[in-house]
Every structure is written in C-alpha cells, then in structure tokens.
C-alpha cells in the first residue's frame, strides 16, 4: 500500500517536472496573416517553416485568408485576437497607421545591422511607400510594376517590329496605335492591344506619362486636369474610336482572360502587371516583355503589399525578428524566380544578384534591363490618401465606366466624378484627423 502511494507520488512529480520543463521550453507563438494565390501561399508556408527551424524559440503560425481579407482582419482586431504580423494592402496602409493599428518600427529598421544599412532597399521607393511623416510602420517584400507583354508570332505575321525593351526608346503613343492597327484584324477577331481598365493601376502610368496625376501631392484626385483627361480619352479611344482594343466586356464574354487571348494570338500587346509573368510564362507561346508606350515621358507605376506588426502585439521582439526575416533576400527570391514578384533590394540588381532570380524559362530577353531601368529612372508610386479604397470602388471606378464603354467622354466623366471623389476623401480625412 505504502509502496504504491510512493510510486504514484514519484510518477506525479515526474509528470509535473516534465510539464514544467516543457512549459519553459515552449516557444513563443506569433500569428501571421495574409492573402495570396496558392503559389504565394506555398511560398509563405515554406518561408515560415524555414524561420521556425532557425528560431526554435519562436513558433510562427500562418493564417491564410484567400478572400475578404479586411473583413477577417477587422473582426479579429475588434475581437482582440488580431494577428501579430500581417500583410497590409498598400491602399489601406495609411489608414491603418493613422488609426493606430500598426507598430512604429522606424528605430528597429534604422538600427538593424542588415536592413538598416544605407542602400539595402531600392530607394527612394521603399522610403516613399513605407514612411508616413517620416515614421515606418511596415516593410515591403517585393515590387510589381506595369509593363507590356507581346506575342511575337502576331508581330511576325503582321511584319511589324517588336516593341523596345529599353524605356528610353519607348514608342510614342501614336506609333503604338499605328502598330496596334497593323496587328488588328476584325475579320479574324484579332486585336492589337489591350489596357485593362477595371482598376487604376494599368492606366495610371499613361496619365503620368502625359504629365498628369491620378492623385496630386495634396492627396486629391486630379483626374480632371487636362493632361489626365487626354490620356484617359486616348486609352478609351483604343477601344471605342480606333478600335484596336477589345472591350473589357468582350473579354469577359469570351470567357478568356487577357492572358489567354495573348497566348492564342488573338491579342498582340497587353499592358499588365509584372505579376502576370508567372502565368504567362507557363502558357505555350513565344512572348516578349517591353516598355510601355509613352505620351511625353516614359513612366511606369509600382506597388506591392507591406508586412506590418500589430501595435498591441504581446511579442513585439519576436514579431520584429520575423518581420526582418520577411525582409530578407531569401524570402523574396523564390517568388521572384517564378515571375510573380520583383525584388525590392538593391543587392538583387547587381550582376550577381540578378543571377539569383532571373530565370531563362520565365524572364524573356532584356527583362532585367527593363525592370532595372524602370526602377532606376522612370518608376512612380501612386499616393493613396485616407479613404482611398472607398473613393475608388464606390466613386472613381464606377464613374469611369461610361468612358470605357464609350457612352461618355473622359471630360464628362471626370466633371461628374472628381468632385464627388474629393468630397469623400475630404470627409474620410476629417473623420480620422478631426
């Protein structure tokens, strides 16, 4: 009897001891949330695995939210279970920061032995997208920008010269339209060129190229300036007047995405984001990438999401350690290799750096040069003021729809839409800043 109770006591103390030890060695768990395609998700999961192996004291748990990201994020924040580290859409970044959702990481960034080194990021872009009144609340892990994709076969058939890779030799708009006309054959339902108009990014470079601004420095929508109006009208004319571009509706209706149209030779040139390279390079056809046509100056537009830390995280140190990792060369390389991302670190644009991500099966000839020159001389970032998302989706995009459909002129559309958009922006700003 006595013996049994003694051994029970022993056993209990062992269990207790083991569990105390286990508790002591229990790594700090931080959550990491984001959206992304299956490919991005796989990359994130791989990265998280590598990080967890390197840092046994930290356990990162990835939460994948394929759709309705903000809904989920806001609900979690309201419920007090916000993720420690998460992806922040660039269109919400300022809003998050002003509302006090994000941890100020300026000091960590500036004092970091690796990230803090001058010239680690490609500047001035990283500073421009991350810093809000001089303070950093997030770091990017990649870039994407708008350029042209073209189907070589379509050009060969029409006997037209390929568009230039070098932004310095970018085609003038009129030349671009001429070539597009050459490639267009209505009888075979073949189109010369296509610039998607469902959202701001694909047409933003052209507005800037003509000397206009989508949003000006005061954070106001400036699409009613004559330069912007002219560019918008020219883009719409591709479809409605010159008729070298399909209607967005037509594409939808054909059940073909623009990428498939390009690959099947029904489209000669496509203006789209660099991320499309990942899918386009998998399609079976001869393609090239080129600089965008220009009105006055060559321009492209860049953007990407940021990685941010929740202000009230219980583990700011561990969260920062993880954020650092997300800002490492290693983390962006694998998605740069497949064509989805472009690097945001200068080291990856040195001759050795380029070798690490330029992949011959994915990146066509001259691609590195195209990107490097754009980032060096001709890139821009759209300034997205507070209330941007609301103004865009409820006022600006619907307001431009009649233009793309050819029902109204650009001037008519902006006259009606811009004052409303700016009133909304002003109202949202006032709500936050008082």
């Amino acid at each position, binding site marked *: 009897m006595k013996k049994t109770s003694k051994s029970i006591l022993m056993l209990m103390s062992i269990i207790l001891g083991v569990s105390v030890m286990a508790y002591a060695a229990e790594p700090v768990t931080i959550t990491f949330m984001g959206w992304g395609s299956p490919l991005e998700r796989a990359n994130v999961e791989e990265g998280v695995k590598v990080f967890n192996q390197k840092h046994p004291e930290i356990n990162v748990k990835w939460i994948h939210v394929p759709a309705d990201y903000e809904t989920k994020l806001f609900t979690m924040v309201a419920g007090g279970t916000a993720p420690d580290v998460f992806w922040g859409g660039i269109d919400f970044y300022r809003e998050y920061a002003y509302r*006090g959702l994000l941890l100020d990481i300026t000091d960590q960034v500036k004092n970091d032995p690796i990230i803090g080194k001058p010239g680690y990021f490609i500047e001035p872009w990283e500073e421009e997208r991350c810093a809000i009144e001089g303070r950093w609340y997030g770091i990017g892990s990649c870039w994407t920008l708008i350029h042209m994709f073209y189907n070589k076969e379509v050009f060969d058939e029409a006997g037209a010269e390929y568009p230039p890779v070098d932004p310095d030799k970018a085609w003038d708009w009129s030349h671009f339209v001429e070539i597009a006309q050459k490639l267009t054959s209505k009888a075979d339902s073949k189109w010369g060129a296509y610039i998607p108009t469902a959202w701001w990014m694909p047409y933003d470079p052209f507005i800037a190229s003509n000397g206009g601004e989508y949003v000006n420095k005061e954070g106001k929508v400036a699409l009613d300036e004559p330069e912007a109006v002219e560019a918008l009208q020219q883009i719409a004319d591709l479809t409605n007047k010159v008729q070298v571009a399909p209607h967005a509706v037509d594409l939808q209706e054909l*059940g073909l995405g623009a990428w498939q149209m390009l690959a099947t030779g029904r489209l000669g040139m496509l203006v789209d984001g660099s991320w499309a390279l990942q899918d386009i390079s998998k399609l079976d056809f001869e393609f090239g990438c080129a600089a965008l046509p220009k009105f006055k100056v060559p321009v492209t537009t860049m953007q990407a999401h940021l990685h941010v830390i929740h202000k009230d995280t219980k583990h700011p140190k561990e969260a920062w350690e993880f954020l650092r990792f997300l800002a490492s060369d290693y983390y962006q390389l694998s998605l740069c290799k497949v064509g989805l991302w472009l690097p945001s670190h200068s080291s990856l644009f040195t001759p050795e750096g380029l070798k690490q991500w330029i992949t011959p099966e994915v990146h066509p000839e001259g691609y590195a040069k195209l990107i490097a020159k754009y980032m060096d001389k001709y890139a821009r970032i759209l300034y997205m003021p507070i209330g941007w998302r609301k103004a865009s989706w409820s006022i600006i995009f*619907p307001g431009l729809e009649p233009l793309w459909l050819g029902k109204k002129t650009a001037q008519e559309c902006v006259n009606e839409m811009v004052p409303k958009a700016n009133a909304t922006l002003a109202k949202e700003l006032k709500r936050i800043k008082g």
Partner: protein
Amino acid sequence: MEKRLFDNRERLNKGSLSRKRITAGYLFISPILLGMLIWLVFPMSFSLWLSGHEWDLISEPSFIGLGNFKEVLSDELFWQSLKVTLYFSGVSVPLSLITAFLVALLLNIEIKGRSVFRALYYLPSVIPVVANCVLWVWILNSEFGLLNFFLSKLGLSKVLWLQEPKWTMPALIIMSLWGIGPLVVLYLAGLQGISRQLYEAAEIDGANWGNKFLFITIPMMSPVIFFNLIIGLINAFQTFTQAYIMTQGGPQNATLFYVFYLYQNAFQWMRMGYACALAWILFATILICTLFIFRHFERLVYYAGT
C-alpha cells in the same frame, strides 16, 4: 380538470412549492432564453448603442449622438442603395407572388407525373444561393448565355445583362423567379386545403371557371398570399448574395443593395457605427412597410376560422 384545480389550490396555498416549480419552469426554458439573450438581445442592444458612435473596429468607439443618422440624409450612396432595394423589392416580390401562384395552380391540376413536376419546380430552391449565383452568371452571359441564346432565337439582339446598368436589375429580378419553390409549396398546401364543397356548391349555382377562381380560390387563398407577401418583402429588403457574388454592387452602383452597402461600410470601410445605424434604419423601414401592409391589406384577407 381535477388536476388543474389541484394545481391552482397548490399555487394559492403553498407559495414555496410553486416558486420551486416556477424555477423549474424557467430552467426548462433557459436554453432558449439564454440563446435569445446572448445571440439576439445583446447584439441588438450593442448595435443600437454603436449606431450612436463612430467606430472603426480598431480604436475605442467615440460618441457622436445622432451624427450617423444625420449623415445618412446627405449620403448619395445610401439613397442609391435604398432606391436599388426598393426597385428590386417592388418588382420582384409581386412578380414572384403571381408567378408562384400560377405555377401552383398548374401543379394542382391532376395530371400524370404531377409529383415529378412539383419536384422540378422546387429543385432550384435546394441549390445553395452561392451556387445559384454562379450558375446565373453563366445564364446571363451575353455571348454564350442561355438567356441571350433564346433572345437570339426570337430574333432579338443580345443584351449586356450584367454590364449595362439599366439591364442588371431586370436580370436579377428574372433570376429571383428561380427561387419561387417555397412559395409554390405554400400555395399548393393552401390550394389543397380549400374544401371541394365550396366549388360544388358554386357549380350548382351555375358558376363558371372564372367565377370559381375569383370568388372561391382567391379569397380562400388570401391568408397564404398575404403571408407570402410579407415574408417575401422582408427577404427582398435583405438581398445580399446576388450583389456580393455576381456584381459587387456594380455596374455604376446599379445593384448596390442596401445590405451590401451596409456590409461595405462595416467591413470594408471601417465604419461599424454607421453600418449599425444603417441596420436600424433598415429595421425601421421594414417595420413600417409591414405595418402599412397590415393596415391596408389585411382587411382583404379572409380568415376562415374567425
């Protein structure tokens, strides 16, 4: 009777025991009471409280009194969403009521394979709403869609159902007819409840088909029609999925349904307080509409029992 008398006496004389019984009673109904408190009364009071606040879900709610309700008045999108919702409800509810009634009449005729037809008409209601919406995106496709295919057979030109603002709402209304299954079932139950004697008596008096329909079927069915009208209206006011899955409120805000706009405010634009105010305005609107209908149309309803 004996038992009840005893119970009454017990209640009068032995207060303690009855209190025990009362407690037991409350315990028995506690699951539903608690459920109502936690899932209905609390969220509703919270949302009423929030409707007087500006709340972005991140910082503390700040009190702004009637600010949200005042803002509604000058919010163009609010009026647009109200207009869209009233348009949809105003057309689709009566149309569904009539169509469902006609279908029920047809399905009530004694023909071969009647149960098969009944199942067929109910079938769409078994499909989840989201699947329905995806299916209809294809039916409404202007190039390959079934609807335009039939139109072209009739020699009509193609319609951009989901791209042109003026056609989107008609498209969604046509689509709403797809979901009349439950209405049909209710009508059928009602039709079968009408006593044959009434028809026989009318026939003896020389009533023809039209008389019987007008003076027997319609009055006898009026409670069911009334019920379907109220429920249909309440549901139509809360339309959300179509806008969410098919149109995202577009094109040019032509399908910006009220509840979709509410959702956008709450979860996309960080305006939970405003969204709560919108919810209470919707609640009031539905209440007023329902009361109005009860006031003015209930007297047209014939309740056989009373």
